């Protein structure tokens, strides 16, 4: 069962520091493959910290591990993840003739991943 939510990509401290170590390094990959979700939303979807969740947009899908946030910090319906190759997977190439693709407030389909399915971490390159 998939739910629609709004995804915001952004910078984080750990994303910045691990970027310096190298974008192909394990830490950067780990940092950029985590998505923050409201704890109430997680409960509704039957997710706990570190559960795998699939995010899907018309152009791509990724599997991430989730991390809970209180409502006062992250309202229900909102997701946050650090910029990286995985967040980029979900971005459409149409910039509405502005040059700027949209990478914040993306409408994403959210679905828990049943165990045995895809590993998180690597983007689904065709």
């Amino acid at each position, binding site marked *: 069962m998939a739910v629609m939510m709004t995804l915001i990509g952004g910078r984080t401290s750990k994303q*910045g*520091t691990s*970027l310096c170590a190298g974008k192909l390094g394990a830490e950067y990959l780990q940092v950029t493959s985590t998505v923050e979700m409201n704890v109430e939303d997680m409960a509704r979807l039957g997710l706990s910290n570190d559960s795998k969740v699939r995010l899907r947009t018309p152009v791509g899908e990724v599997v991430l591990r989730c991390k809970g946030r209180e409502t*006062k910090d992250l309202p229900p319906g909102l997701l946050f993840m650090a910029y990286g190759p995985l967040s*980029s*997977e979900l971005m459409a*190439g149409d910039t509405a003739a*502005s*040059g*700027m693709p949209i990478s914040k407030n993306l409408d994403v389909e959210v679905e828990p991943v049943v165990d045995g399915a895809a590993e998180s971490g690597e983007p689904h390159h065709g």
Partner: protein
Amino acid sequence: MGDNIRVVPDATCTFCGCVCDDMVLTVDLDQKRITKSENACVLGKAWFKEHAIEERPFALVDGREATTEEGVEVAAQILANARFPVVYGLSDTTCEAQRVAVAIADMVGGCLDTTTSVCHGPTGIAFQGGGESTASLGEIKNRADLVVFWGGNPAEAHPRLFTRYAVTAKGMYTPNGRKDRTIVLVDVRRTPSTPVADIFLQVKPRTDFEVLWALRALVKGRKIDPSIEQRTGISLAVLEDLVDRMKRCRYGALLFGMGLTMNRGRHFNAGAILALATDLNEFTHFVAKPVRGHGNVTGADNVVSWQTGFPFGVNFSRGYPRFNPGEFTTVDLLSRGDADAALIIASDPASNFPKAAIEHLKCIPVINLDPKLTHTGRLARVSFTTATYGINVPGTVYRMDDVPITLRPAFDSPYPSDEQVLTSIRDRVRELLGGNRLPAGDPLAGVAVS
């Protein structure tokens, strides 16, 4: 740690647009590492720590190790033979290198774009529409008694924006630092930046434009319906209070980030906040500044503007610079499959771009310059390992407020600088083409240079 130690004071960190030039670096010259970076924030510390000399080939051509010279030859052939190449990136390299990159694009008649197009390009577009009121960061440090952060998280992306420049910094008219200022923060969620603010406005996603426009209306004395709260999550009372504070302050600043530009509203959002600051100048002194992400993206804006008249998204195919975001910006050039070659410098579009763009990058010859191995480097036909600006390479960078600063490198690198590689490529392309390429239709197009 060995005996061969050097201390470099007044060095510059170029990780983010704060470009703090008060670093004191302790350098182990034998190991070619920075062992200590006093005054750096957590991001700066990682920047200095992680940029040592890596054992990598000087170049990779079609996946095999090569010399820089061999790479230059292949790269020059690619650019000379391409019909619609794009030169992209440039935000993490020196102005000296940026100038050569523009020269190459002009010479071959291709496109020239920088990471601005996916960062504060929309702000640049808004600026072209209405202008802006801005200031150097020292004006904010010394005079600003009201600072509003909008759509950004400096605590995690620009830590010293708070401590060195805009929140706790003590200045001439702000001798008590934090106590002399009112800090407002506007965002859709709470971040580590939120506790810094006196007033936090948690807006509903995708409603920044409405809030900004309502503020503009209130500044001009218009009435706003209380239903704005239902729309945006911010009550009319809070908006009126904010407007009152903004009008009464002595020197106000709006500092904004990607929260405004990376949304559907793009340059409308940026235009709204720039216009708000402009409107407030009827009442008091107010400035608005985009908070820039990379160490020398502002340098790229400046270099491209002075050499072409336009800040990014430039095309030279007809023999002169043309500007058109959406047509000559790189995400579009790649997503539509227009570019037939790419020269990527100090940037990693294969990590950060939409999938359609990355897929096209895999189909065209790509030349890449970077100190580190990146996704773009992995898919490039020619990949150069270059030295890191500010750490190994001297040169000029521009802080987010257009202040130009001269770098003080810490230790040498065996790898060439971006400028050196680009200069070699430019010179070889010039040889191959016999000078600048003239567009077909130019009466002198077929004439060889004497």
